[in-house]
């Protein structure tokens, strides 16, 4: 075990003390984030003693397993669905050989990616290069914690849930930029830079389109927002929904806003130099992000888990997957916009519109 660790250490870091220090700092940061999240549970353990500890510990374990199942299961489903949907739209069949009508295709793909060699270009900035695929995954996992899948199916209902989600999703471009900068590739660098400016430009209309929802429901808690919806907020906030959805497309780097990884311009953008499972982590993060933004749209505008007849979580997943299907539909029908057009669209059109929407909502509520 120690021998193996030593080999990995030498292979990856060549025992450069500065890089070890950087890695250590990164790890510490990750630990701090985790500790901050676990704070209520730690406090509970100190205050209430061991019985609470045991109960909460099981709850924690269960929720970690649950979140991982949702993340990986969702990615497996989405890879398959994306390929099938693309197939239907492009006059072809899509995967059909592995398993009944190709259902096992994504599992086989995952195994293939696991077995692939991890190539590393010579001049990469090693700590950044290795940390980026790991760090891009943390926001996805954390955001999952606050999403209410059903009436009682939620890892933890935090009273500032929206703030937490926005704070963590704003971390994604940092890891993308780490990947772009660290891979010592000009295409990757351009992709990383595009990602930063795109994310900044679209974070604002996204937040501005959520604020009316918060105003209407009077709470930051996601469960509270769902409970506050007598009728789905999309009826009260149609413009807000559109702005949110467009910003969400840009946030998750999906076509027509997939500029950081624009294939015909930047080869593969920020993940050009990644192979095997490192690339798969970027891929996984992308699909999880797609799921999260669609889940949030469901919660904010479509009434979340509420619905007649069927159980709540079924309604939740139905609504979310309809939105995801819409995203795929866009992806396979639209060309890509140009970079300046993308930014202009946000700054000149979406942000003023969102402001107006906010003002009108406020005025109407006052009346």
């Amino acid at each position, binding site marked *: 075990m120690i021998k193996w660790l030593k080999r990995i250490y030498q292979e990856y870091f060549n025992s450069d003390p500065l890089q070890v220090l950087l890695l250590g700092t990164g790890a510490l940061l990750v630990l701090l984030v985790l500790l901050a999240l676990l704070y209520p549970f730690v406090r509970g353990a100190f205050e209430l003693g061991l019985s609470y500890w045991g109960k909460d510990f099981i709850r924690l374990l269960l929720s970690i397993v649950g979140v991982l199942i949702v993340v990986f299961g969702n990615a497996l489903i989405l890879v398959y669905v994306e390929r099938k949907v693309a197939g239907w739209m*492009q006059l*072809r069949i899509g995967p059909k050989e592995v398993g009944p009508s190709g259902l096992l295709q994504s599992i086989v793909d995952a195994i293939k990616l696991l077995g692939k060699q991890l190539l590393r270009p010579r001049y990469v900035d090693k700590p950044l290069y290795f940390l980026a695929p790991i760090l891009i995954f943390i926001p996805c996992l954390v955001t999952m914690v606050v999403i209410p899948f059903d009436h009682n199916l939620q890892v933890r209902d935090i009273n500032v849930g929206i703030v937490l989600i926005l704070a963590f999703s704003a971390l994604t471009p940092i890891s993308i930029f780490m990947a772009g900068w660290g891979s010592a590739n000009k295409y990757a660098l351009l992709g990383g830079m595009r990602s930063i400016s795109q994310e900044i430009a679209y974070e604002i209309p996204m937040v501005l389109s959520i604020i009316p929802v918060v105003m209407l429901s009077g709470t930051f808690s996601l469960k509270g927002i769902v409970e506050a919806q007598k009728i789905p907020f999309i009826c009260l906030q149609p413009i807000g929904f559109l702005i949110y959805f467009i910003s969400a497309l840009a946030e998750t780097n999906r076509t027509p806003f997939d500029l950081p990884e624009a294939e015909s311009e930047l080869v593969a953008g920020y993940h050009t130099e990644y192979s095997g499972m490192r690339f798969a982590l970027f891929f996984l993060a992308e699909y999880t992000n797609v799921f999260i933004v669609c889940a949030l749209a469901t919660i904010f505008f479509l009434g979340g888990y509420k619905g007649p007849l069927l159980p709540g979580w079924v309604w939740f997943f139905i609504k979310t997957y309809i939105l995801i299907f819409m995203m795929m539909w866009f992806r396979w029908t639209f060309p890509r916009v140009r970079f300046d057009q993308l930014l202009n669209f946000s700054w000149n059109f979406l942000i003023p519109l969102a402001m107006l929407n906010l003002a009108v909502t406020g005025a109407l509520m006052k009346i």
Partner: protein
Amino acid sequence: MVSAKLLKDLQEMGVELQEVPYEKKGYCFDGQLEKDKLLQAVEAFDHYGYFIEDIVCVDYVENLELIYHFNHWEDPKRFSLRLRVNPEDPEVPSISPIYPGGGWHEREIHEFFGVSFKGHPNLSFLFLHPEIEYYPLRKIPVRIPEEKKKILQGKMPDLEEEAFWINMGPQHPSTHGVLRLFIKMRGEFVEEIEPVLGYMHRMQEKMAEMKSYMQYYPNTARLDYVGPLAFSMCYCGAMERLCEIEVPERAEMIRLITLELNRIASHLLWLGTYLLDLGAATPYFFAFQDREAILDILEGLTGSRLTYCYYRIGGLCEDLNDSFLKKVEEFIHRMKKNLKIYDDLVTGNAIFVARTKGIGLIDKEVARRFGLTGPNLRASGVAYDVRVSEPYAGYKFLRPKIALLEGGFCYERYLVRIKEIENSLNLLEEALKRLPDGPFRTEKKIKKPPVGDVYFATESPRGQVGIYIVSDGSEKPYRLKWRSPSFCNFISFTEIGKGMLIADAVATLGSLDLVVPEMDR
């Protein structure tokens, strides 16, 4: 007439041009030049709005002959200016200050023959690799001096500058093949473009000198694998002109039908890949499905799907089979319906319009100086089409309609190609009605062509294909030179691409419809 005025001017200069029969030679005026009068004469051509077709070099052992081909859009008469150079120390003034497009042909000659051009800004190697020892097209082996083997002229990143050099290709998704562009960028803006060709270079012109005329013929389809029939037609037409062979009318009409089918297939491939360049993946499959139908039809006729070997010198390989005409009719019907679908899906798409409208301007002046031809030129508002100006094959009997648009932006280049598909479909319909009976090839058999030279031009989906053959009466060509349209279209990109966003550069490069094997030859 422009040509009459030009002839008068040239006469005053002391350049004598003789009129030669176009039917026999493929060019109208021919004359010898002195070295010191070259620039003056070329300036006269520039003054009257001639565009440069190509520069050919032929090694006659006792001297090297440079042949400049000029042509005019409104008054299409080909001029060939000949310039004799001493093979020991070949040096010629460069015409690149007047015709920047000519500079690229000069680079090619410098590489293959060792002619140095005085005043050329960048005489580095374009196609060949630095390990090559002899000038490939010289008849007597001449060593290449070490100092002449320059690939890129020391283009290294300058640390002081904020710009950086980026390699686009040879394995880049938007270059469709192995084209390499060395681009100087400042942020997302392109500042300078330095192309490196030759990743697909096969020295087709040397191959031709090594094989007999009929042995070389299948190679013609390997130049442009998307629209190979235009190149085959060009070769066969040149040989027919050289040997004075009359081709039966039925063969000519069948040539027209297959050429037009090939043109539609090529434009469909362009449509799919261009939209892929812009980030839309789905139209690619729709376009390829229709192209597949054409390939099926042509496979039934010629036996192959991509590199056809169907035409023969003096006719065709085989007559039509029974199902061909029915299949073509079905295809026309289907394509007309699908074209409307593409129009609905693509032409009005807001993102597509925003990406292409007003992007990548090629004005007439740039087009003329670089020798642009084909749909790229017609999108700039010039009604020049070899099918009309120098009718060959079935175009002698059926005059095609020229798709013409003013503007010269990517969007117009897209519309011109869509219009051309439409026109081709109409032409096909008419040709099917007028298909005569009779033999499908001549009875005349020829072993060796007579001594002489000949030029022949056809209109490929990408522009004017030209071939210049010099025959010394043996069974192998003495010299064969291709004018490939993609090469001439591409070199203009080094000029128009400056100052663009990288995304626009990709859109413009795609709109030029390049095929790399044809460019590299």
